[in-house]
């Protein structure tokens, strides 16, 4: 499985100028019409924006056994790329995001950003938590400005950028509201604005739309895609919803159930904008779903049939 890095599809076009609106609905996926080498945010596109090499994570369970959560994860994410990670619950996909964010430390392996190993948290990588973690004691505006305040950015600039990012997520008139006064979809957008306002190169999103109703989710998909195109961020998006992954991603990586390994990577070469209901999206999702179902079955088997004493051995390790 350590050859994952080489599964990266050669035909996948590199991101066009991230600020170009042509990115949406343009001729994406048709290789050849896009220049091959480009500089995005001052870094050569040859070096992956985020590189995960042989990431392993194990921990001790309460009964004292060692549990392997992540097993030799290798993934390369190009600057400006939208990567989706899918997998059954318990495969460690959230944990992987925490590792990239620097909130936890992997047992072995390296997390590289721009070729440099990450040391703890850094505002070049901002994680949007599944539970959001918005601060209820601050107004919407202060939440968005929080990261800038920590960075020591002056008040005037903070104000200006807060306004900008709130406009970007269409929440300008809620600047002075408190979090509990907002609906789920609005909170989601505050979290997005708060993350963007720190101006990270890499945006990590942990099942951000899982708890939303279908209409709100569709809207946020559109907005996220638009913002991604406008700001040129690299996005790593974790979800258990395969269609959502196809809807949004340039590429989908499928993780196995316990220990989490990269089972396969699927390039998504469908033109944008896509919709969850597109036939092509459904067709692409089916292929991934078949493989995902295997993993889900394995997870169910483990939870219900064989009981808790079976800890998956770290088979297949080099």
């Amino acid at each position: 499985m350590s050859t994952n890095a080489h599964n990266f599809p050669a035909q996948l076009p590199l991101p066009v100028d991230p600020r170009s609106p042509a990115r949406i609905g343009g001729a994406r996926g048709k290789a050849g019409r896009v220049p091959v080498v480009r500089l995005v945010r001052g870094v050569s596109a040859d070096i992956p924006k985020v590189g995960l090499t042989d990431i392993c994570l194990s921990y001790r369970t309460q009964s004292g056994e060692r549990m392997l959560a992540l097993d030799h994860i290798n993934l390369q994410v190009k600057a400006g790329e939208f990567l989706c990670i899918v997998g059954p619950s318990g495969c460690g996909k959230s944990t992987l995001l925490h590792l990239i964010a620097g909130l936890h430390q992997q047992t072995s392996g390296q997390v590289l950003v721009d070729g440099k190993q990450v040391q703890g948290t850094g505002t070049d990588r901002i994680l949007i938590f599944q539970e959001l973690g918005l601060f209820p004691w601050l107004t919407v505006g202060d939440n968005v400005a929080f990261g800038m305040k920590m960075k020591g950015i002056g008040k005037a600039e903070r104000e200006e950028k807060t306004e900008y990012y709130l406009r970007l997520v269409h929440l300008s008139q809620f600047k002075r509201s408190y979090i509990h006064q907002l609906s789920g979809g609005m909170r989601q957008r505050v979290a997005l604005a708060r993350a963007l306002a720190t101006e990270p190169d890499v945006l990590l999103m942990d099942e951000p739309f899982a708890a939303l109703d279908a209409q709100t989710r569709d809207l946020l998909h559109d907005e996220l895609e638009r913002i991604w195109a406008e700001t040129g961020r690299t996005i790593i998006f974790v979800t258990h919803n395969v269609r959502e992954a196809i809807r949004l991603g340039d590429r989908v990586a499928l993780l196995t159930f316990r220990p989490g390994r990269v089972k396969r990577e699927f390039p998504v070469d469908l033109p944008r904008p896509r919709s969850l209901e597109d036939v092509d999206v459904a067709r692409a999702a089916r292929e991934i779903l078949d493989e995902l179902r295997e993993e889900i079955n394995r997870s169910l088997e483990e939870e219900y049939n064989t009981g808790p004493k079976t800890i998956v051995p770290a088979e297949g390790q080099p």
Partner: protein
Amino acid sequence: MKRAARLIVFYAGLLGLWTLLAQMKIWPPYLFPTPWGVGDALYAGFKDHSFVIAIAVSMRRVLIGYAISVVLGMILGLGVASSKFLEETMGGLLVSLQSLPSICWWPLALLWFGLSQNAILFVVVMGSLLSVTLAMEDGRKQMPKIYSMAGRNLGASGLQLFWYVLLPASLPFIVSGLKQGWAFAWRSLITAEMLYLSLGLGQVLMMGRDLNDMSAVIAVMILIIAIGYVVDGVVFKSMERRLQQRWGLTPST
């Protein structure tokens, strides 16, 4: 409105009972004063400014002492909550120390600080420090972990993380402890002031005893209760209300 009416009836009844007992003259008036006697004492006390000075002196002391215990208590509580070693060792000690009435520190305070303001402050701090510490420890543990993770994720660390994230995030969980700490501080202060000539409310109370002026004693007792009530009702209630509104803890009624 109904509540106000009930309160008026209750207090009118209480005053009536008091008047009745005083008028029956079971005890001599210098032992059991009448309500208007106490009223006169209150008026006189404010007129010659002795109560005003006493309140100012006492408030100043309690504010200083309380502020010290809040700062120390938060640091201690945070330390105990975030270190397993401290929790195992100091946690138990803190709980057991809480059963010690703060005035028991008075002899030590006298030896260490002499007959001075600092001795009184020491007793006040010892009285409220533990409540604040235990509240902060508890608050830090109850606080959802997501806030500290989100704070670190957004670039906060060290003191910034404490001041901008951990402290506000734990506030709803420690506000009752802060309130309890205030009550302990106030009680300890009055007790300590009663033991030492020192201008405060406690001393005015003892002066009433020395002069056999029970009206003045009761007047000061009423003042002590009133100040405690006002601080609780005005400062802490509004703090609680604001927290609840911001966090959306209660439906706004």
